[in-house]
């Protein structure tokens, strides 16, 4: 039971980042390697804002909300800028050019953060969140875990509703089905792609700030491992598929947790990736398949 709780907590962070991978892949068929680094920038933004407000005596809840919103806004805009500068000009170029560009953007973000924030670890304040816990079926659960999990689910739900029930969401789905046809139908393709990047960035930032608050340590390289795991989650669920990314993220978290608990912490990555390979062998499109149009 405790393993399940641990796994769901970390899994919800993975899921939020995986959503960004999956949305961007669904729409422009790009595996955005820089996405994990957006998560890192989000964590640093939240940390910076918290640092600014720590001097004031504003209530904790307000400060947390502000830092979360500022980080989401900044990283959302950063993602849009990334799209405009690095990806838009290459939309008609070969897949390889844009993939390499994504790697370049990732390195630029990592090294930018290295210069701005230094190579060491920075830590979020530890006294902001309550430490109260309760017992659930023999497992210790903290209210913070519950809060983080709920917030993640809420963000995912909002995204789902946005994609399913708004005009822009409909345009996104149209785009993922056939870009040229969508353009002929009067869809503003560039605009929709920008909004997709914005949403991906916002979710990554939310995950970054929450992870920073929960684990307290942040570092300029934290996006790499996160990106790798989230990408795995997206592939596991079926890349391009939104509910797939959510389920994939939670699944990876839980798998990792059980592997560490019942086998060995050293083997957890081996096991997670072995499961990934197995799933892909049996069902190459991932658990939910890559049927973006119908499912998204």
């Amino acid at each position, binding site marked *: 039971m*405790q393993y399940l709780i*641990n*796994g769901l907590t970390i899994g919800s962070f993975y899921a939020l980042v995986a959503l960004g991978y999956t949305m961007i892949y669904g729409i422009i068929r790009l595996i955005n390697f820089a996405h994990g680094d957006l998560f890192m920038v989000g964590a640093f933004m939240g940390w910076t804002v918290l640092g600014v407000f720590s001097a004031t005596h504003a209530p904790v809840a307000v400060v947390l909300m502000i830092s979360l919103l500022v980080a989401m806004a900044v990283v959302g805009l950063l993602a849009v800028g990334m799209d405009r500068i690095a990806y838009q000009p290459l939309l008609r170029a070969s897949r390889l050019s844009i993939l390499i560009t994504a790697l370049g953007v990732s390195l630029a973000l990592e090294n930018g953060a290295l210069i701005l924030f230094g190579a060491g670890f920075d*830590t979020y304040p*530890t006294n902001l969140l309550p430490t109260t816990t309760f017992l659930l079926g023999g497992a210790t659960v903290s209210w913070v875990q519950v809060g983080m999990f709920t917030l993640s689910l809420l963000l995912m739900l909002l995204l789902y509703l946005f994609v399913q029930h708004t005009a822009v969401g409909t345009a996104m789905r149209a785009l993922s089905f056939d870009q040229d046809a969508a353009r002929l139908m009067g869809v503003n393709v560039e605009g929709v792609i920008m909004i997709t990047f914005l949403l991906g960035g916002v979710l990554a930032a939310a995950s970054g700030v929450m992870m920073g608050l929960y684990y307290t340590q942040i570092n300029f390289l*934290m996006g790499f*491992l996160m990106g790798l795991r989230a990408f795995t989650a997206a592939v596991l669920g079926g890349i391009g598929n939104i509910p797939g990314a959510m389920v994939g993220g939670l699944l990876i978290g839980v798998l990792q947790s059980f592997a560490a608990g019942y086998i060995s912490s050293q083997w*957890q990555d081996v096991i997670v990736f072995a499961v990934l390979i197995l799933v892909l062998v049996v069902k190459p499109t991932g658990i939910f398949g890559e049927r973006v149009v119908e499912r998204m």
Partner: protein
Amino acid sequence: MQTKRLAALVATAATASLLLAACGGSTSTSSSASQPIAIGVPVPLSGPYASAGQDIVNGAKLAAAKINKAGGVLGRKIEIVPADDQCDPQVGAQAAQKLVSQNVVGIAGGYCSGASLPESTVFHSQGDLPFVMDASTNPQLTEQGFNDIFRTIGRDDEQGPFAANFIANYLHAKKVVVMDDNTTYAAGLAANTISALKSQYGITADHEVITAGQSDYSSVLTKIGQMHPDVLYYTGYFTEAGLLLKQARAQGLKFTMMGGDATNDPTVLSTAGAAANGFIITTSPLAQFLGTASNYVSQYQAAYNKAPGPYSVYEYDAVSVLASAIKSAGSTNAKKIDAALHQVKDYKGLTGTFSFNKIGDRVPAAYITIIVKNGQFTAYQELNSSGQWVPVP
């Protein structure tokens, strides 16, 4: 890439200056009585460990100043001659050659064991020049069969038995879990601790290994919690130690948590917050935890306007014990100084009272435990000379 090229450049420059020094130095080998006695200090003075090296040189200079103020040694002043070894084996060998060409009488210093090793061969080959190390803890250094190597710091393989002793005799633990992060250093310390627990105290410890660099260790902690241990001893680094503490306490796990000397870093406190309280670390005593070194700390602060760093006080002792050996040898002859160093008995240094054993290792080993109290590292327990645990004065 760039650093490599830079290193090559510096190495070339060092070789060039070495040649020059060698040419210039050959004429003045006769040591006149008025000349100062040169003590070489090979440490990294550029690159990522430069600040640690500078701390050590500062410690050496404070020791020299103290000795010179009291009239020097054999009527001559002590002069500290630093050399940059960049924590690199090749550059270290060149730095050692350079010191030899500058006619040093003895050497007190070293930071990275990897660089100290080739340096020790150079000094040994130059007529057994005495080399007193202040910070290099690799066991191999004193196991080479050289009679001119000494150290004022403990060895890596002494920490394991020390920790085992503390766990068994002070904490009276019955069930112990030892955890490492699979790095050479941490795995070695874990293995040493487990074997000492087994062979000396009959305690069979469980062994867990984690992968460094993850953020979430809650599941491995859950697993350990189900074993109901009295003590968890983590031999890896401070980054993970902070996370382990925070996540263990968040799950309501109450066992005592201990860390090896690589966890001795303020990051643990800022990461874990209140959860760090009660965390015990086995470490070489830092100057600020030594009652005997409190004057030194304030002296250093006044002279250099910063904290003395972890090793400068060991360097202070290295220079001082070397000077006192030169004095009792009554000569600057290398072999006579080596013999005098082997005779050192219960030398009262700032880091405690110590002697050297046959191979030049410090006895008794310099380790203490520190504990986190109210979010601060504070001195805790140490072994006295009769093997009892007593509070650090």
